[in-house]
């Protein structure tokens, strides 16, 4: 009984503990990802092409001596206008021990979200794959899609990892 109350309390506290999220836009949609997975944000530079890679893999860049693949999430999710300007940003992610760059329309904000603020996403059944979505959050009447970026980037869909087990 006591244990239960305690765990109940713990869960309640956890609900109140806020984590920071980086939000970015893809087309008209706003996404939020765990800021601890973000290594840095930098401008887009033309990458070196990788032959026979899917279109959303733009190629690889030299990030201070590390070869980093660049994924254009706009192409992957078919959102927004695909154009590369000096203002196009690349979010350098550090997921699953790898460094991966993701091209997005723009980076908007860093926000704090508590667990309680993240609501489960409705089930879209077959039309939309919700397995990378942790939930939806609303801040100042903006809806944000909270994404499990690590799961997304390591998934077989992204074709970034040889044996995509995850």
């Amino acid at each position, binding site marked *: 009984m006591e244990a239960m109350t305690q765990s109940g309390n713990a869960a309640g506290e956890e609900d109140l503990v806020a984590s920071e999220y980086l939000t970015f836009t893809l087309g008209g949609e706003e996404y939020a990802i765990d800021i601890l997975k973000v290594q840095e944000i930098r401008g887009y530079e033309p990458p070196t092409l990788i*032959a026979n890679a899917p279109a959303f893999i733009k190629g690889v860049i*030299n990030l201070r001596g590390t070869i980093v693949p660049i994924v254009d999430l706009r192409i992957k999710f078919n959102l927004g206008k695909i154009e590369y300007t000096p203002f196009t940003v690349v979010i350098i992610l550090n997921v699953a021990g790898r460094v991966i760059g993701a091209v997005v329309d723009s980076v908007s904000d860093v926000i704090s979200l508590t667990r309680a603020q993240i609501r489960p996403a409705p089930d879209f059944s077959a039309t939309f794959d919700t397995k990378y979505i942790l939930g939806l959050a609303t801040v100042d009447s903006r809806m944000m899609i909270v994404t499990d970026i690590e799961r997304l980037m390591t998934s077989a869909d992204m074709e970034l*990892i040889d044996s995509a087990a995850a």
Partner: protein
Amino acid sequence: MAIDMSQFYQVFFDESAEHLAAMEGLLLDLDIENPDPEQLNAIFRAAHSIKGSAGTFGFTDLAETTHILENLLDRIRKQELGLRAEMVDAFLESGDLLRDMLEAHQGRGEVDGAAVEAICARLRQLSTDAQIAAPAAEGNTPLPAVAPKPEVRVFDIQFVPTEVSAKGEGVKNLLAELRSLGELEILSQPDEGVHNVGYWQLRLRGDCGQEAFADQIDFVADNGAWRVLESRQISESEDGAFGFFDDSPGAPEEDAAYGFFAPLDAPVEQNPPAANTQDDGYGFFEPLPVAESSNDVAVSAEEGDGYGFFEPLPATPSEPPVVAEEGDGFGFFAPLPEVVSSPSSPADAPVEQIVEPAAPVAVVAPEKPVAEPRARAAKAASASGAGGDSSIRVSVEKVDQLINLVGELVITQAMLLQTAAQMQENAPDRLVNGLAQLERNTRDLQESVMSIRMLPISFVFSRFPRVVRDLSGKLGKQVELKTSGETTELDKGLIERIADPLTHLIRNSLDHGIELPEKRIAAGKSPVGTITLKAYHQGGNIVIEVGDDGGGLPRNKILAKARERGLQVSDQMTDQEVFNLIFEAGFSTAEQVTDVSGRGVGMDVVRRNIQSMGGRVEIDSMLGVGTRMTVRLPLTLAILDGMSIAVGDQTYILPLSYVIESFQPQTGDIKTLSNQARVIQVRGEYLPVVALHEVFNIKPRAGDFTQGIMVVIDADGIKAALYVDALVGQHQVVIKSLEANYRRVQGISGATIMGDGHVALILDVSAIAGMAKSNVQKAG
């Protein structure tokens, strides 16, 4: 304060592995008829060092086995025993087992317990055998007790067992052993309650010498806390009074010196404050009468190898590893020679000296009232000092990190240089000069950093005498191994990976190349075959040759076998092509499958391994004269000589070692096969054409073939013409992994960063040549 020993384990493992390697090398060099005492000493020292540190770190299995090994070695060293070939075999075998044990302690592999038992038994037997063989009266050993006399002798045995052996079977086994030697009487023993831990006193009546049991006692006893007094002899009662200690083979003389400190745990915990240790120190003197005269120690000091005294001292690990590596325990003695320098007062010296605020040394020093150690300590100190200066142990990761950083620096420097070049006349002279100097400095820096990873190839070569020795014995062949160029340096990564392929080539030469002695004599050759192992630099490559003067490769047999296996062969093939067939998977011409080779797995693996290192292997052979396998390897895995080529707007790097020539094709040079595959005639040979822009789906700059360049590549015998838009230049590039953050890409082996900071992909020539081949085959 307990010291966490586990942090020193890696040092111990490395060190022991080195000692084992050294021991093996020395054993193989040993002239059995007339062994060099220096070498014997060196072998003994290696074994002893392993034992010492294994004991300190609590690896009892290692310590026990080396102990037995050491006993036998010691007797040989002192010329109590003649060296025999079987002993060398036993030593080598036990060396292997010790290596297994080390591996097992590091969590790799398992130890064959039975084998360990067997080798221990064998070593013991060799050392006892010898007792009979050994001259009973060794003139130069003035120790009457040594000579086995038939009469009944009485020994008083006193010892304090280690906790481990007391609680385990150690003491019981010892008692059983002693009972088998004669009549045993237990004079005093510790209470049952404390599990046999404590002071034991036994009396043994028997006709054996004390060497028969001394080493068992030494085993059980805590770090030499034992002694045997031959108290009465039935026939001659008085002269047993001396001769204890130094005559027993099992008594490591060195240990005797500090043996009084029975439970040595104290120094471990209380080190270094000497004040605490002192009290503990005395306590242990009690069971031992003053009769521990200084001349015992003197004798042992002369025989022991200086450091031996102090080695198992638990204080050792508290030293920084660098010191521990070279000097074992003795480093401490250097600053305090005066403590050990009072030969006149052996018995009461300890008390006085201990009181001196003399740091940890006091624990050990008082028991060495002889001048001898002083000199040794000085010597030891200088040795350890020199060792500390000449080399340090650094983890490979640190070196690799350094190499990476320098790689970055080289790239940055190239970028700067390019920027300056773009400024042309506008660049100030001072900037240009500074950049030129920077370029020189970075190059030097890069070279020296790369050289850190370089190791002489003798690291690999040194294992082959053993391979040849074992195998030639097994096959009944007489083979001599000649090596040259052992100092040729090679990247550490390559050293590790070349060992297996080379071992295979040597086994192959031994098994298939060198003939049996009778056959050799019949062919008019010397019955002793020769395998030559040569390493040298050639261009940017390391060349390693494995040659034999055996039968050579039978061309016809290989061709026949290839036909049998359904391979496409013809009699017109060149020798080189025929010989290369032996690298095909599953190919073997051996009539008989032996446990050495002949299963046909192997040569293909050898070739694959060498290729994966960016090298290649070639065979030259002449029937009846011999065979020579030539392995060519790049100097290092981290840097590659590359040719940069342009395809469309992309730049790729083509490893230079695969490039044969390049030329501009003329109209009509390129023909098609079945309207699909293209071929081009180059020097009378039709080569498949691989258009890189097609492979990589890039829009080419030039519309037709005459505007581009054909690069002829040779990837392990498969030739192809690679069509590219232009040749850009030649660079040394630092290889970066593409897989670290991405995945494998077909046709690409890695990536590098160009002078302008862009990434260029490195072509996987073998894969591309393979594509060409399959294209042609599809078309044909």
